[in-house]
Structure formats: C-alpha cells, structure tokens
C-alpha cells in the first residue's frame, strides 16, 4: 500500500507540473493534496482527466475560522482515494467551482452551498438544492453558529 | 319465477366470483411459499370498500367516472345470465346468443378505458390508452377462435346448438378445437387483466393505472366485476369448448374440476410470466394468436360435414 501511495504522489506531482501542492499522508492509506483556492480547478482537472481518477463525492465543513472542501477522487487501479483539500476564510466564502471540468460535481457543490454557505464561482446552475423553499436565505445549517436551524 | 331465478343467478355469480378470487390469491400465495388469506377475504375486502368514502379528483368527469364501474357490472351480469340459462336449460336460447355474450363481455374493458380517461389523472390516461391498444390486440383473435365451435354447431350461434354439437365429443378434442381453445385462453387472460396482460393496471409502473383514482364503493364495484369475470369467463370457455356445465351424475364432479383446471392455468400463467410491454402484447395477439386461430378455423372446416 505504501509503495502505491508514493507512486500515486509521484505521478500526480509529475502531472501537475508547476502547480504548488502540499501533500499530506496522515495514515498509510490516506492521501490529501492541499491546494490554494486559485489552483483548485486545475488540480481537479489534472486528477480527473490526466491522472484518470473517478470523482466520488465532496465534503464541505466549517472548521472554525475557515470553510473547507475536500474533493474525493477514487483511484480504482490501486483502491486508493485521492483527496483534494481547499480552504477559504469564512469572511470570504468563495471557491472556484470544479464543475466545468468535473461535471459530476454539480449537485454536491449546490448541496455544499445550501448547507455550509460556500459560493462556487463559475458553477453553471447555482440554485437551491436540498433546503426547503421556505427556508430563509443566509442560514446555513452545517455552520457552527447556525447549528440550531432557522 | 324468472325474477327469483335471475336473483339467484346474480347472487350465485357474485358468491362464486368471490370464491374464485380467493382461490386465485391462495394459489398465488402458495406458489410464493406463503400461506395466503382466509376464505372470507375477498368478501371482507368488498364490505370494507363499500363502507369507505369515495374521493374524486376535481379534474375527473364525475358522471362517467362513477358510471363506468356500473356498466362493467351490468355487462358481466347479463353475460352471466345468458350462460347460466344455457347451462341450466339448454333448450331455451335465443338466436345469436354467442354474439350477445361476446358483446357484453367487452364491457369490463370499457370500464378501464372510460374510467381511466375520466379519472383526470395522467396514470389513468396512460392506463386507458394501453387498455385500448390491448383490446384492439385481442378481440380479433378471440372472435376468430370462436369459429371452430360455431362450425361444429353447423354455423349456429345458439348455445343450445353448440352444446348439442358437443354431445359426441367436446370441441377441444379435435386439433382445430384445441388450438382455438388455446387462443381463447390467451384472450381470457387479457380480458381479465392479469399478468402477462395487465398493462392497463401495471402495479409497478402505473401504480394502478386505470383504476388508480377509484376508492370506496366505486372500487368495490370494479373488484366485484373482476371477481365475477373470473367465474363467467371460465364458464363461457367451458360452455363453448369443454362440453358445458353438467349438473347431473358424474357432472357434479367433473364440472368443478373443469373450472379448477382453467382457474389454476390462469393463476399459474399469472405467477410465472412477466408483464409484456404493450407493443409486445399487441404483436403477440396479431402475429401469433391470430394466425393460430385462422389455422384452427381451417382445420375445423372438416367438422362442418359431420353433425
């Protein structure tokens, strides 16, 4: 497993070229690439098209001062999930959308918009997805301050 | 006298219909390794439905929607009356009663078509459209397949003649007659609206289709009509193909057995076949059943000479 992990890291770094990447390996079978938000779409494209991983889902969370999105790409050839982590401060909750390069991310980004309040710049269809029509604007249930709902 | 006989006939048809519905449910359950409901279950279903409220959608055409089940019940009852009188008193039948029975037996399909279209629901509309296509599919081979018994009875349409002609050998004993019997069985399956021909109701696709919007007494009428049809159609098939109902001597044993055989064949087909798509069903009737019926008719021309 460890050799596979290292091989994957090498390959992705190779394909990403000059893109500044930080690689995080907290456990032998966990791999995170931390990337600055302006490079997120490009790394998403590299992982999806050049590297050939399959987009599984994404996770949005409120980690205190910042909002974090982790995109999970499944690399089925070795059975490893390659994660791409992007952060943005709560005061400026805008991230570039990866939907233009990974079409499957469309709905999960809408859901993260509803629940965590992250605005995805460049998203083709930023409508409300899962909150009910009479839910007030600006209240995002998965943010720590809005935990108790509307 | 006639009034009493007719009332008994109506009640008898209803009771036997409910009993046949129960047999259907129990045989289905046993095939699925279950136990099945108790014998009074179809009766309990009917009583319960009669006590419920009839909810009608705002978009439904009220009159047609509520009258359609009544037409169906009337149709089955008239057909039943004619068949009962042919069974009990074969000497008295009026000219053309085969045609009259076939005509009245189309009423139940009309219930689905009219009721479904009048229900104001898109499911009902699709169910009604499918039933229309199905009727176009099976009516022709059904009528073609009735030619051998008519030929055997020397071109007479009276039930008395058909039954008399079978005294020397039932219609299905000959090759043509047997092929026609098979065609009629397929058409009966479609008339009853059971799998593989239940496209109008289509539980898993149309969630009830043509009868979806019915509730309360209207639904009770439709279920009663279906139950009575489950009795009347085998009665019709036995009268025309299998020598008729004999309530004397060995007849007390063979007649219920004939009914049971037909019922079990219907229920087995219902439980083992998948539902056909509507175009597959129509193609089945036009290109397989209809040619077989025509061949059966030709093979039966030979029996015209005998009488």
């Amino acid at each position, binding site marked *: 497993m460890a050799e596979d992990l290292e091989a994957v890291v090498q390959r992705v770094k190779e394909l990403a070229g000059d893109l500044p990447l930080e690689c995080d390996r907290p456990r032998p079978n966990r791999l995170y690439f931390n990337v600055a938000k302006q490079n997120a779409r490009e790394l998403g494209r590299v992982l999806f098209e050049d590297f050939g991983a399959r987009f599984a889902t994404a996770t949005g969370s409120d980690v205190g001062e910042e909002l974090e999105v982790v995109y999970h790409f499944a690399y089925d050839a070795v059975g490893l999930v390659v994660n791409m982590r992007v952060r943005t401060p709560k005061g400026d909750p805008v991230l570039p959308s990866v939907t233009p390069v990974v079409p499957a991310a469309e709905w999960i980004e809408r859901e993260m918009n509803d629940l965590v309040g992250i605005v995805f710049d460049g998203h083709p269809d930023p409508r409300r997805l899962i909150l009910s029509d009479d839910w007030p604007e600006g209240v995002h249930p998965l943010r720590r301050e809005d935990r108790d709902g509307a | 006298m006639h009034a009493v006989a007719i009332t008994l006939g109506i009640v008898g048809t209803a009771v036997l219909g409910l009993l046949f519905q129960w047999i259907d449910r129990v045989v289905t359950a046993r095939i699925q390794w279950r136990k099945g409901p108790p014998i009074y279950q179809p009766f309990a*279903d009917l*009583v319960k439905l009669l*006590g419920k409220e009839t*909810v009608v959608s705002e978009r439904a055409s009220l009159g047609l929607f509520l009258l359609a089940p009544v037409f169906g019940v009337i149709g089955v009852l008239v057909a039943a009356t004619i068949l009962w009188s042919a069974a009990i008193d074969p000497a008295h039948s009026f000219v053309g009663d085969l045609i009259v029975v076939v005509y009245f037996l189309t009423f139940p399909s009309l219930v689905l078509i009219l009721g479904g279209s009048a229900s104001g629901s898109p499911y009902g509309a699709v169910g009604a459209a499918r039933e229309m296509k199905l009727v176009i599919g099976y009516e022709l081979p059904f009528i073609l397949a009735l030619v051998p018994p008519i030929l055997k009875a020397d071109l007479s349409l009276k039930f008395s003649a058909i039954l008399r002609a079978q005294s020397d050998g039932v219609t299905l004993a000959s090759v043509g007659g047997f092929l026609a019997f098979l065609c009629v069985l397929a058409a009966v399956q479609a008339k009853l609206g059971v799998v593989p021909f239940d496209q109008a109701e289509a539980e898993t696709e149309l*969630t009830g289709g043509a009868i979806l919007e*019915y*509730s309360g007494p209207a639904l009770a009428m439709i279920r009663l009509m279906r139950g009575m049809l489950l009795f009347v159609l085998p009665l019709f098939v036995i009268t025309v193909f299998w020598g008729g109902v004999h309530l004397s001597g060995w007849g007390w044993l063979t007649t219920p057995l004939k009914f049971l055989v037909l019922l079990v064949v219907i229920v087995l087909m219902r439980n083992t076949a998948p539902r056909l798509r509507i175009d597959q069903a129509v193609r089945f009737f036009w290109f397989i059943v209809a040619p077989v019926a025509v061949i059966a008719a030709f093979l039966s021309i030979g029996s015209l000479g005998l009488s």
Partner: protein
Amino acid sequence: MAVLDKLKLWGLKKSPWVYHVNTGACNNCDIEILELLTPRFDVERLGVLLAPSPRHADALLVTGICTRQARPRLQEIYRQTSQPCLVVCIGACACTGGIFHDAWHFAGPVDEAVREVDPDAKIIYIPGCPPKPEALIAGIAKALGDL
C-alpha cells in the same frame, strides 16, 4: 344502523390496505415494512395488501421525521386518503423525532402534522429503530383489535 356499523368495522378490521409514506426516513423502517410482505412474515394472512395509491388505503404507514419539505405533502396525502383511515407512525423517528428531534430539518413529529389537518385522526405508534417485523405485526394486530 348498528348492524351496518358493525359490518363496516368488521370489514375494516379484516382487510386493512396499507399505503407507505416516507417523510424523510433513513429507509431502515421502510425495509422492515417491505419484509412484512415476504413469505417469512406474510401479512396477507391478516388481509393486509399494499395499496398503490392513498385512495385505496385504509392505513398510512408513515416513516421518517416529517421534514420541512415532507410536511405539506404528508398532509395532502392524508387529505387524499379515503376515510376512515388509520395513521401508523413506524419507528422512533415517526413517533417522536427520535435522535433527530432537535435537528434543523425537523418539522414536528408526524402526529402533529396530521392533527393539523384532522384533529380527530386515529394515530397509532410503533416505536423501534427499526421496529422488528414481529413488532410491526403485533402493533397492527393490536390496533385492529382495538378499533
């Protein structure tokens, strides 16, 4: 007429057709309901049939916490069901909200949503997470016996 009323009640007890409504459940209770129709438990013995539409139903089997979006729809389904009908709250979520009682999407337990439409609604509760099929059968049989 007392005889007719008794007959009506007998019919309802012996032939309860159920319609399943999921108002935001995790599907566990829904799977347990499905199991009732399988050969092992076979509720058709009790006359229970799965109805394709609320118009044909005598009992609404409601699972889930009744989310904000599901609430008006649950009420509409109750209005469309032909009376008399029973509402069966299946599982801890439908009975009280369960562990999701304080969650942001909770819109009142099922019985409050139904009582808003019909204060005299007959509601029975079968708790469990999920309730075993035996518990479901016992609950339904007990409710029918008490009708």
